[in-house]
């Protein structure tokens, strides 16, 4: 008997039943319905503007820095300001994602921007995100052809562009965004979904929190205040 069949047989024996079709139907129905469980009122009860404010509050509570700008054209200036303020060189590795192409980077010619996945020497990355979760100040990023995962983890500093209209209440709203994407089955999901809540940290030495254990030491969100009620995705 294969290990697989052996393990399944032991489980069925423990449960006191065979591989009944009725049980399989119940499982299929539950998965197909993927009903939401209780969702805390903290974020779900808020209007769009309240959700954005809660996101900022929760994100800042875990050492994410957030700078609000009013339009996309302000992004390059904010990137340059942030890098200078943090004493970082004016160069960054940016996700080759088309949503970032419309930003007028040319207006900051001193910013040295390369596109692609992260390489070991890259100090600063800039990426878009799929959404942000107000409940816990969490960014939701997904992998894809134009959004490599390494940008989220290898560089010391990670800058994320977020629009107010991308802020949702709960993780379940993030799942719905994934379910709305085209396609069927597991391949419709991105290979990786990263929920990121603050910069990398560890408490492994005497329970004292230190930032920048292995992932980014700094996580900076540029929050573009478009109309939060206008869902872009």
């Amino acid at each position, binding site marked *: 008997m294969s*290990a697989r069949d052996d*393990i*399944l047989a*032991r*489980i*069925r*024996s*423990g*449960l006191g039943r065979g*591989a009944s079709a009725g*049980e399989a139907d119940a*499982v299929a129905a*539950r*998965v197909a319905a*993927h009903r939401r*469980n*209780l969702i*805390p*009122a*903290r974020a779900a009860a808020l209007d769009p503007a309240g959700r954005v404010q809660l996101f900022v509050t929760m994100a800042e509570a*875990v050492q994410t820095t957030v700078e609000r700008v009013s339009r996309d054209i302000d992004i390059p200036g904010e990137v340059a300001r942030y890098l200078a303020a943090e004493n970082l060189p004016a160069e960054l590795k940016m996700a080759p994602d088309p949503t970032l192409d419309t930003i007028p980077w040319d207006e900051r010619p001193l910013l040295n921007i390369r596109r*692609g*996945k992260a390489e*070991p020497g890259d100090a600063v990355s800039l990426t878009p995100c799929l959404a942000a979760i107000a409940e*816990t*100040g969490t960014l939701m990023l997904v*992998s*894809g*052809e134009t959004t*490599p995962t*390494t940008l*989220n*983890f*290898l560089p010391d500093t990670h800058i994320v562009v977020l629009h107010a209209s991308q802020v949702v209440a709960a*993780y*379940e709203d993030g*799942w719905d965004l994934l379910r709305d994407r085209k396609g069927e*089955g*597991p*391949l419709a*999901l991105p*290979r*990786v*979904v990263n*929920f*990121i*809540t603050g910069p*990398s*940290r*560890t*408490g*492994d*030495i*005497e*329970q*004292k929190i230190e930032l*920048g*254990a*292995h*992932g980014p030491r700094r996580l900076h969100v540029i929050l573009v205040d478009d109309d939060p009620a206008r869902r872009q995705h």
Partner: protein
Amino acid sequence: MDPTSRAFIENAHAGLANPVLRRALGIAGAGFPARRAEAIARLPEFEALRDEGKAIKDHTIAHLDHYLELYEKNVTAAGGTVHWARDAAEARAAVLQICRSADAKIVTKGKSMVAEEIALNDHLEKNGITPVETDLGEYIIQLRHEPPSHIIAPAIHLMKEQVEDTFRTAHTDLDSARIIAEAPQLCAEARAVLRPQFLAADVGITGANFLVAETGSSIIVTNEGNGDLTQTLPKIHIVVASLEKIVPTLEDAATLLRLLARSATGQEFSSYTTMSTGPRRPGDIDGPEQYHVVLVDNGRSAMVGGEFQEMLRCLRCAACLNHCPVYTAIGGHAYGWVYPGPMGAVLTPALIGIAEAGHLPNASSFCGRCESVCPVRIPLPKMMRHWRERQFVQHQIAPAYRAGLAWWAWVAQRPALYHALVEVKARLLGWLGGARGRFRALPLAGGWTQIRDMPAPEGRSFHALWAARQRAQGTGGPR
């Protein structure tokens, strides 16, 4: 790892006599419960979420065979491979075979208690492959050749001075005049030393906090980002996970995630919660080319349907360790295997046998804090009692202890005799205690009086006092 649980009593004494451990556990024993309490106070729905979390896990275990089959189907559909392992040897063999197929020399690892359980590192080393632990705590104890002493904070038994010594001994190519006395310097050194290992690794091994049947995904929860570098950079990602990690849907995972970080570290959410589904997709410019899941049974299927089934709900948050007066006094190494504290006292005997781990379910005062903080309401004290009953029935306890228990049970089943004897004992001890009101030494209680006095009863039993009080209030005696 080979268990030393038989030596629990000696291990516990060693722990109590270790001043470094006392200081380290003092920090942990205060910090974790306070942070958890603050996080829960901020979430009014927490108790309702605990009920839902329990229900999700109970439903999943009652249909575990079907969810495992669905999970495997979806992993395969996403381009991954599931390897079923009945026991530790099969799990080790599966991992080694995958590593060999890629001619792997260096394997990076995220923190995984199941990998500790199957003693994976030793097996890889014996076969010429270098495993590199990347979680800071795991890295420290790997350098010290120690097992973890806590399931989410493996090096919790150490102070920064020990870590400094460890790093000076291990990192001999660094300037010996460097200053690494404080945590930030130690963290920076570990980061710098491990970064090239992440980049050089051929295979990355992580555990999983959850396996989602609906999508065939694995979810890891970390704060350092080491798990993400481990699973993103090498050509091959291997997930080593035990089969009770299954949850039905993404929505169910979200509910359990709300419980996990708050119960574990008192965070609203850990820094990184990462869901992975299969290998690199066509067009992707990073990510592993292969995605394997080694699904480990190793004794869990035998728990299904039995009196320890509820233990399969465990999320491995460590709240029961952090709140346990025994764990926070003696530390995790005393328990002698991978899983310490109350969850270990129940799980370890189920996985390595009650003959090996018989001391563990007895190392509890049944204060009940573990159950009161468990995010999925596992009745840990009740299950420790089940183990004690089994030991009694199977004659696995010392004859004198067994005879004493049998005698006590005989008396306790005869209330009149029991009350009379208790009354006599209370009066006698009250009289002997005299004006001091306590004893410096007592026959049969040397273990207690060796380090503290035993308070003497006031002279009357609780039953007698209660009956008198009820009579005084005119509500009749106890019944």
